[in-house]
């Protein structure tokens, strides 16, 4: 029995009269790579936003590392152990790669205004540690040689890698990945898959929201399929691809 890192209980979200998510529950277990798939309009992105805290649920609850976080603002969740990436990466373009990385550390003394004058030694020490860690992680994603360049020089694929490395600066227990394969060329996709597996091997849990069934099947041990805002099916990749209801949901009404 592995413990739950992230748990959603009966989450619902209505936008006006539209129920985007209807009583969805899921449990992300420590150490796994869980896939969340579903056809367009299934409510994946809303589910993601609910878990990340950028959208407040109409009802239901969320627990992160056993702590209730349902109504906690989005910016508190990283310190609580949950990081996220964006479907279209959002680096800070004018900041150097190194700064992009260092900013992601949580609980920095120097982020308090007065500490920069009252505790300069401590701020400096933390900065040195953050820099070492940032460089090591940039090394991991093969971006170290660009450490002092502004992030705007990166290609789309490199931005995805930077974003993954950046969120690791905060030592998250679980990372939500929003369609990591979207817009990535096949060669870089292999790099990305290898990176995710490597990071997962160090004990980081992933929840992967993805369109690309092939990538999900290769990465995940367990897949949750959503359709029309609710849970449709849950199982291993091979079970999912054989399940008639999933095929039907993807291919439309009469296919099964």
């Amino acid at each position: 029995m592995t413990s739950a890192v992230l748990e959603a209980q009966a989450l619902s979200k209505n936008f006006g009269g539209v129920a985007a998510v209807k009583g969805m529950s899921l449990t992300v277990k420590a150490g796994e790579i869980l896939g969340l798939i579903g056809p367009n309009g299934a409510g994946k992105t809303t589910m993601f936003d609910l878990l990340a805290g950028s959208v407040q649920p109409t009802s239901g609850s969320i627990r992160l590392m056993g702590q209730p976080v349902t109504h906690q603002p989005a910016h508190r969740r990283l310190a609580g152990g949950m990081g996220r990436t964006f479907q279209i990466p959002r680096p800070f373009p004018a900041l150097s790669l190194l700064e992009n990385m260092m900013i992601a550390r949580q609980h920095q003394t120097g982020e308090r205004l007065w500490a920069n004058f009252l505790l300069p030694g401590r701020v400096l020490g933390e900065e040195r540690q953050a820099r070492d860690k940032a460089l090591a992680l940039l090394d991991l994603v093969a971006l170290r040689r660009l450490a002092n360049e502004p992030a705007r020089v990166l290609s789309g694929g490199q931005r995805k890698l930077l974003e993954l490395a950046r969120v690791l600066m905060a030592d998250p227990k679980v990372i939500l990945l929003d369609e990591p394969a979207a817009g990535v060329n096949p060669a870089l996709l292999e790099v990305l898959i290898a990176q995710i597996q490597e990071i997962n091997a160090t004990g980081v849990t992933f929840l992967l929201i993805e369109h690309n069934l092939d990538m999900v099947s290769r990465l995940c041990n367990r897949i949750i399929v959503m359709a029309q805002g609710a849970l449709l099916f849950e199982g291993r990749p091979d079970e999912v691809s054989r399940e008639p209801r999933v095929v039907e949901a993807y291919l439309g009404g009469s296919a099964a």
Partner: protein
Amino acid sequence: MMIDILGYGAFFLSTALIFALITLGLNLQWGLTGLFNVGIAGFVAIGAYASAILTTPDAADRIGGFGWPIALGWVGAATIAAAAAAFTGYATLRLKADYLAITTFGVAVVVQLVALNAQGLTGGPFGVAFIPRPFAAVQDQPVLFNFANLAVVAGVTLAVFLALERLSNSPWGRVLRALREDERAALALGKSARSYRIQAFAVGGAVMGLAGAVQAHFIGFIAPDNYLPTLTFQVWSMLMVGGSGSNRGAVFGAIVVWAIWVGSGSLTAAIVPGDLQARAASLQIVAIGTMLCMILLWRPQGFFGPRPRRP
């Protein structure tokens, strides 16, 4: 003659450095954080009136006149301006770009109108006079007086400059720059955009208020007319010329723009016939505007600004 020129030079530089202080405050808000504050004159006015009211001797027709020491008046001015700016920041949390600009502009207009009409507090259109000057004892020796003032203004500017340099390069400043670039990403990385926005407003406002107070004590008299939108325009030009995002640029831009402002003023005074003088004053704004256009064409990032984004 030589002595007079020296004295004038000191006077000129003191005024320019007070503008440099205001520009440093704006650089924190705009250059670092990307907050489009067009209410600069309002925060400068709040600082000036706050210190004036705190330090002037008791006056019969006005509230205040606490007779505090000048230094305490300045601390009070920075604190009160910071509080006003923090409140403005809080009230405008959901506004960005041009909407924020319009709102802050409105704040400045309100402050100016209060200064003009709340006669019992601000002296109304007559302003506040007899604001204690730091070196009143040597007032009859203009050169010494001007240099003493310059030393104080330069000291305050240097202290603020060094403090802001440290902040800009600190993790705190890094968060402000990140917010300027992408607020949503900063939120996802655990930074509270609300809190930092209010802090940036407050610190920038404190510097602007301090500048207003220093100027009030330097001149010895303030009136609502000192805090019209022209002031805001001047300070924005200074930051554009110097280079948004650079504290050095803020100081440099303030001195250059003030030199052009004063220079074009003297020039029109010298060549324009007396009966047209009042109208010719607008030529100063034309001169600054023309220079701003030239700078933006030739060096859009200003003198010290970071290289612009590649298209």
